[in-house]
C-alpha cells in the first residue's frame, strides 16, 4: 500500500472548498489550516499564466519530520501516511522546522498537527474530505502500489511534477500539469 494524492492544476479553480471541508471534517481549530490553495503567476502582461493548486502535507517517502522527531511521535502509518502520535509529541517544533512545505503547525493544545490523508475515512473505503468535496473533481486519491488504480493510471498518462523534489523528500503529492 502506498497512498498518494494528485492535484490537477488544469482543473483547480482555487475555490478553497478543500480547505473548508478539511477544517470541518477534522475539527481544525479556528485560524488554522491543514491544506491551502496556492496561486502562482508566471510571465509579464499580457503573456500571463496562472497555476492554481491545492496543497497539503506531501506524506513524503523520505520524510524529514520523521527523521528529526526526537521521540518517535512523527511516524509512518499504514500506506505511508505520515502521522503524529499526540501522546508522544513534546511540542519541540523540530518537525515543523524540518518541513520544506511548512505543512505542520502547533495545535492550541500543544502537540503538532497536520494532514492525515483523512485516514479515518480512508479505512472505511472513502476518499479524504478534500477529495470528496472538490466541485471540479481536480483532486485524486489512491494506492500507487496497485497498478490498476486511478492514481497509477493518471501518473502513467499525465505529465506531472512534485514540489521541491530537490529537498530529497520523495513527496507523494503529485501536481498534474
Amino acid at each position, binding site marked *: 500500500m502506498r497512498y498518494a494524492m494528485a492535484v490537477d492544476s488544469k482543473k483547480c479553480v482555487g475555490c478553497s472548498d478543500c*480547505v473548508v471541508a478539511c477544517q470541518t471534517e477534522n475539527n481544525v481549530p479556528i485560524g488554522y*489550516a491543514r491544506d491551502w490553495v496556492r496561486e*502562482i*503567476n508566471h510571465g509579464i502582461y499580457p503573456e500571463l499564466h496562472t497555476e492554481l493548486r491545492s496543497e497539503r502535507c506531501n506524506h513524503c517517502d523520505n520524510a524529514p519530520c520523521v527523521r*528529526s522527531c526526537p521521540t518517535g511521535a512523527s511516524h509512518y502509518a499504514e500506506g505511508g501516511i505520515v502521522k503524529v502520535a499526540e501522546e508522544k509529541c513534546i511540542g*519541540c517544533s*523540530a518537525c515543523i*522546522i524540518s518541513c520544506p512545505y*511548512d505543512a505542520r503547525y502547533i495545535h492550541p493544545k500543544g502537540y503538532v498537527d497536520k494532514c492525515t490523508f483523512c485516514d479515518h475515512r480512508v479505512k472505511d473505503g472513502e476518499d479524504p474530505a478534500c477529495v470528496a468535496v472538490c466541485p471540479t473533481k481536480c483532486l485524486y486519491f489512491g494506492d500507487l502500489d496497485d497498478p490498476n488504480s486511478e492514481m497509477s493510471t493518471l501518473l502513467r498518462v499525465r505529465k506531472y511534477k512534485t514540489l521541491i523534489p530537490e529537498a530529497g523528500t520523495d513527496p507523494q503529492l503529485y501536481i498534474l500539469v
Partner: protein
Amino acid sequence: MNEDLIVSGRMNPLIDPHLGVWEWQIPSYLFLGGLAAGILFFAGLFAVWNKEEQYPTAVRKAPILVPFILVLGLLFLFLDLKHKLYFWRLYTTIKLESPMSWGAWTLMAITPLSIVWAGLHIREFFPNWDWKFQWVKDGVNWLNKYKKEMAWAMMTLALILGVYTGILFSAFNARPLWNTSILGPLFLISGLSTGAASIVLLSKVKAERHMFARIDLGLIAVELFLIIHMFMGFNAGTQTKINAADLFMGGDFTAAFWVLVVGMGLVIPAILEILEMRDKKVPYAAAPVLVLIGGLILRFILAHAGQMSHWVMN
C-alpha cells in the same frame, strides 16, 4: 516574473508569513550549552595534562558555574516545549537520526558529571565547606581517585555538546541558511571561545589570564575563517543558498550580523587581546565580555534568519 501566493488564507500561527516557532528560548539555550561545553572542555583538557596548579580557574573554579549554566539552559529548553507535560518522552527512546535526541541524552550524561566535578571543587568558592556526612566524604574521596577518567569523559561529552548545538540547526535542509556542515564547527569554536572568555573573567592569576586570552585569540581567528568560508560556500551554491546568504549581504540581518557579531564580538576583542599581550593598558574584562555578548547575538541572529530562509517553490 514569478509571483507565488497562498490564496486560501492559510495563516497558521508561528508558521505564516514566515516561520517563528523557535523564539528566544532555543538561541539562549544554544549559547548556554556552548558556554558550558567550552568551560568543561578546558577543565578536562588541563586536568588531563596535569596543569591543575597552573590553571586553577580553568580546572577547578569555572566548572563550578557549569551546573547552574546547564540547568538554566535545560529550563529554557523546557520552556520552548509546547506540550510540556510529555517532555519525559525524550527519555523513552533513542533516535540516532534526530539531533535533538542526541542532545537530550548528552545533557543527561554531562549535567550529572558537571555536578560531580563542581562538588569535588566546591572549596574554591566556599573554603570552609563541610560535607557533613561521613558517607558523602567517603564518596568524594573515592571520586577524587578517578579525576583523570572523569576529565576525559568531560572533554569528549563537551565536544559532542558543542558540535550538537550547531548540528541541531544544520540537520534541517528545509532551512537553507542552516543547512551547512560549517555550522557544527562554528558553534563549537564559538562555544569554546565563550568558555575561554569566561575563564579570563574569573581568573585572578595573570599568567592564566594571558594563556586563555591567547587561546581565545586563536579561536576567534578560526571562527572568522569559518564565517568567511560559510558565506563563500553559500555564494558558490544554488539559488536557494545564494538567497540564504543574501539575508546577510544586503538583507535584513546585514548590519546586525557584521557590526554586532563580527565587529563587536570578534574583531574588536581580538584587537584588545593583542594589545593586552603587548602590555598596553586595556581593561582585561573588555575583550571577554564582548566575546560573550557576541556569541549570544550570533545565536539569536542565526536562529531567526534561518527560520526566514526557505526553498524557492516551483
